[in-house]
């Protein structure tokens, strides 16, 4: 495998692994927890490094994952005192741990490759140089790590799918039925931390958030079923990562930055063009509703005056705008649509309801 292909595969693995727990963060409205965790794991990484003096040690990964869970716990502890709201608690806990980590790097670990640039942006471009042979297969270490984390995430969400769904939708019922939302919450947070630790090497602290939140937020606009949202998140994340790689190559710039940019672009595209919930669909639906309501009003108006002495005057095309207080242009538009829909037909200058139009008027008035 060429290094270029390896980088692309790693990028897609990172994005897919991040998107999975991200779905539940978005649905639980705790998206910013991922921001906190992706920063505070640095504290664990530094502490771990100072203890084992080896950046590749699994102990370092375990320690860093634990720091992420610790962050969640500290935020909850602080929130539970009711002296601080959750968002402020996040803003208090994570900068503290993150800045401690930054101080420790510059003080004790500045001469290893754990530098502040790598922390912020990662170094996915160098990933193919760090190799690991497992079961006789020689692949970049990052590919093994992210593949393993992706598998762990798939396993957890696959096995606990029903439990995660219930505790995310209705934690009260989950508790009453004997499931433990707290256990599931911490299970999920452990995976978020582990995923952030793995992704950290590749894309750095800041972009982990983009990978965890962007694809699920886009998928949320594309479907109204949880299982599909999970699948779409993974697909959007992986494709954005791939697009980001090629953007970075074209512009000769940072791969991680380009990946996050493409996630933003994906979200923007979905936001505008999503078939049901996109902005265009929304505006078109609103415009359509305006015409539909107007046609109902027209039908109801004609029905009300049908057979009355005023009917001739009230149903004349030329005076309709006056009676309904519509502009002449709007009258033309409504009548044209009503005619096309076989609701009314023209009889000289007068409008007559068809059977369909009469049924619509009755339905609209008795609703």
């Amino acid at each position: 495998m060429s290094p270029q292909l390896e980088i692309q595969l790693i990028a897609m693995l990172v994005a897919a692994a991040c998107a999975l727990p991200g779905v539940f963060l978005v649905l639980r409205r705790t998206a910013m927890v991922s921001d906190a965790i992706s920063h505070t794991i640095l504290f664990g990484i530094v502490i771990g490094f100072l203890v084992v003096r080896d950046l590749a040690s699994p102990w370092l990964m375990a320690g860093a994952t634990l720091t992420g869970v610790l962050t969640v716990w500290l935020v909850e502890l602080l929130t539970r005192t009711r002296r601080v709201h959750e968002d402020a608690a996040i803003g208090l806990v994570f900068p503290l741990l993150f800045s401690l980590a930054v101080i420790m790097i510059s003080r004790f670990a500045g001469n290893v490759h754990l530098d502040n640039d790598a922390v912020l942006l990662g170094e996915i471009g160098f990933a193919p140089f760090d190799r690991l042979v497992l079961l006789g297969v020689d692949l970049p270490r990052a590919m093994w790590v992210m593949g393993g984390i992706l598998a762990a995430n798939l396993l957890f969400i696959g096995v606990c799918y029903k439990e995660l769904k219930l505790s995310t939708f209705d934690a009260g019922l989950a508790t009453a039925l004997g499931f433990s939302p707290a256990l599931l919450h911490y299970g999920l947070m452990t995976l978020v931390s582990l995923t952030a630790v793995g992704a950290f090497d590749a894309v750095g602290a800041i972009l982990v958030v983009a990978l965890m939140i962007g694809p699920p937020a886009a998928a949320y606009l594309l479907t109204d079923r949880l299982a599909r949202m999970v699948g779409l998140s993974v697909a959007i994340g992986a494709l954005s990562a791939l697009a980001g790689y090629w953007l970075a190559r074209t512009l000769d710039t940072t791969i991680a930055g380009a990946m996050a940019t493409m996630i933003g672009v994906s979200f923007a595209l979905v936001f505008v063009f999503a078939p049901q919930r996109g902005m265009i669909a929304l505006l078109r639906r609103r415009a359509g509703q305006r015409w539909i309501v107007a046609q109902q009003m027209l039908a109801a108006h004609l029905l009300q005056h049908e057979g009355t002495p005023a009917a001739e005057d009230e149903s004349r095309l030329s005076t309709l705008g006056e009676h309904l207080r519509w502009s002449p242009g709007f009258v033309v538009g409504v009548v044209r649509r009503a005619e096309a829909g076989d609701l009314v037909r023209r009889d000289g200058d007068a409008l007559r309801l068809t059977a369909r139009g009469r049924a619509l008027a009755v339905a609209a008035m008795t609703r």
Partner: protein
Amino acid sequence: MDRSTAAIDVTDLTVAYHDTPVLWDVDVRVPHGVLMAIVGPNGAGKTTLIKAILGLVRPAAGQTLIDGAPYAQQRQRVGYVPQRGSVDWDFPTSVLDVVMMGRYGQLGWFRRPGKRERELALAALETVQLQQYADRQISQLSGGQQQRVFLARALVQDAQVYFMDEPFAGVDAVTERAIIGVLQGLRAAGKTVVVVHHDLQTVPEYFDWVTLLNVRVIACGPVAEAFTDEHLRRAYGGRIAFLGGGSGEPHPAPPAEHDAGPAVIVGTPR
């Protein structure tokens, strides 16, 4: 089912948030096969009482038995309908899926719902007249329909004792009738149903048992004995307006066995 034990037996239950007691020394004993309303002013602890019984809030003291045993051993026999506003109705899921969640307790950890759960859920949706909405996204439902989805979800739990937190909140009169019909059907099948209720006027008509609550239990028993002017005044204090003799408004007919005169209430807190 052992008829000698109460369906619900709450003794000396006290719940406090920090230093403020929300429930104080509550004793409630509910026999099998009754439809009971919990009424009381805002902040009386009605929701907290249900949550404490279901283990959702931790009591400072006291114990609760469902059918003679602690709740943790009786989960399968208890159905729960939380307040409609307690969940996110934009959650990406279908009506049928939400109703099937009622079966998750029987399924236990890790087992996935299958054909049987689907059939039970569809049957429950039929009971609440929502079968044609099974595949709808839940955000497309009206408030009354959402409430009926929750009711259907409780029905598939196939419980003996049901707790419902304000099932009539924000539903129209027709839906309210439909829901009370289902609840009375449950009672007829020998189930015990406990409902947090707000409309005092309908208490004698809908329910046969009532608990008046205001942090303490004011009264608990058959509607004829417990739902009296005196008890209502103690539960609601000055926040209740009794219509004087000069009022031109019609009094609703008191139930025959209601000896303490009609409790005519206007402007009850909702």
